[in-house]
């Protein structure tokens, strides 16, 4: 049962990822990315990481996607990727190299399969909250400073200067 659910969600994730890379239309790409993010959230839930599943939906499907959509709106899609490709052979090379990367990664997964400690089961969400506010307190606080810096940076960058 769990395996069937996994295969279903995994197919959805891979299909959406391929759609993002293959389809020319940027808006369609953004929609594919939403599907991909949502299916990864489902996988987090299956792995017992409930909090991350919800955070994934809020952060990616809610916030980051809206940013992308606004940028796409602003940038008038459809005027790029037309005309001859100046670096055609480089891009053609990307496919075999990507396949090679995939084979290497899968070889690593196959090599480590079955080794390591026995499965301990997922940590509870409570353990995550405790870890974030004790062991990881400093990075946690630094994250807020990073986000603040990002907000200020974006405002400075995007502000139209007079004249």
């Amino acid at each position: 049962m769990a395996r069937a659910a996994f295969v279903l969600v995994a197919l959805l994730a891979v299909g959406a990822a391929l759609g993002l890379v293959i389809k020319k239309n940027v808006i369609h790409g953004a929609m594919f990315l939403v599907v991909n993010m949502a299916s990864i959230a489902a996988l987090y839930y299956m792995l017992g990481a409930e909090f991350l599943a919800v955070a994934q939906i809020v952060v990616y499907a809610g916030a980051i996607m809206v940013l992308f959509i606004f940028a796409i709106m602003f940038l008038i899609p459809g005027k790029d990727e037309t005309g001859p490709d100046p670096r055609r052979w480089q891009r053609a090379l990307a496919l075999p190299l990507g396949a090679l990367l995939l084979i290497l990664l899968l070889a690593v997964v196959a090599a480590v399969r079955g080794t390591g400690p026995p499965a301990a089961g997922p940590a509870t969400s409570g353990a995550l909250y405790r870890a974030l506010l004790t062991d990881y307190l400093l990075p946690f606080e630094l994250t807020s400073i990073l986000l603040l810096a990002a907000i200020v940076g974006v405002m400075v960058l995007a502000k139209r200067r007079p004249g």
Partner: protein
Amino acid sequence: MTLPPIAQTAVAAFVLLNVVIGLVTYVTLLERKFAARMQSRIGPYYVGPHGLLQPIADALKLMMKEDVVPSSADRWVYNLAPIAFLVPCVLIFATLPFAPGLGLADLNIGVLFFLAVSSLEIVGLFMGGWGSNNKYAMLSAMRGVNQIISYDLPFVFAALVPVVLAGSLQLSAIVTAQQGLWFAAYPVIGQLGFIAYLVATLAAENRVPFDILEAESELVAGFRVEYSGMKFALIQLGEYAHIIATSYLGALLFLGGWLGPGPAWLGAGWFTLKAMLVFLLLTWVRWSFVRIRVDQILAISWKLMLPATVLLLLVTAFWVAWRSGGGA
């Protein structure tokens, strides 16, 4: 004969889905009757006794209408948008515990799940606006995304006040924590939180006075202007389902959910009654105020609601820490 667990869940989900659709259909009648009373009219009256069959007539009418697809529409996006809009709006009902043990999934992060999934409706909203390839729909979708993002933050902070008071993200635990004192009656903090919740709900649901994305005089009918027939019905259904779900959440967070006098099986009834009260409160505001401008809406969110709700949440957190003796 007992069904396997997955089949039981499927049956329960099917029942819940149909109850939600029926409830939402009849809530439109409630709203129209209520609005009519406020304007000294009678409202729907001719279909069935006191207009009781009006929602069914409306649904039949929408089903029989021709389904028009604009020739220049982005077909995939246009056709998928109503579904993308409806699914999250109905999905959020899955976490609501209607009575002790009566609910689909009482997640231990129920509040977060509700907030996260309910914010997903902007994807469908945007798809509808973009896919229609209509300037009014596009403008409306941009306004809507802007507004929903702006008011999601105060909404979340207001909804977190009862969470901090109850000390749990689980919806059923929040209800049990209100035995004795509903959070709406909690001195100062509760009332402020409830008011903030209502205002943020109005804005996040695009209800008057915050309905700039369907402002009839400017944008025809907003992002659904090109939709007709069943697709229009799906969008309308999703919109009302979202408002009802948010009313239920408000009743649960601030008005004690299923708590009430009488035997336990009355719980779901009390819960629905309170949710309808919240809904009528929102409707009352809708028929009492005029629409405000875009810049005013955004200014209210970022300059007033957000700082106020953050401050309220901080005060609540300090109060809870001080009372439990844990803090300084």
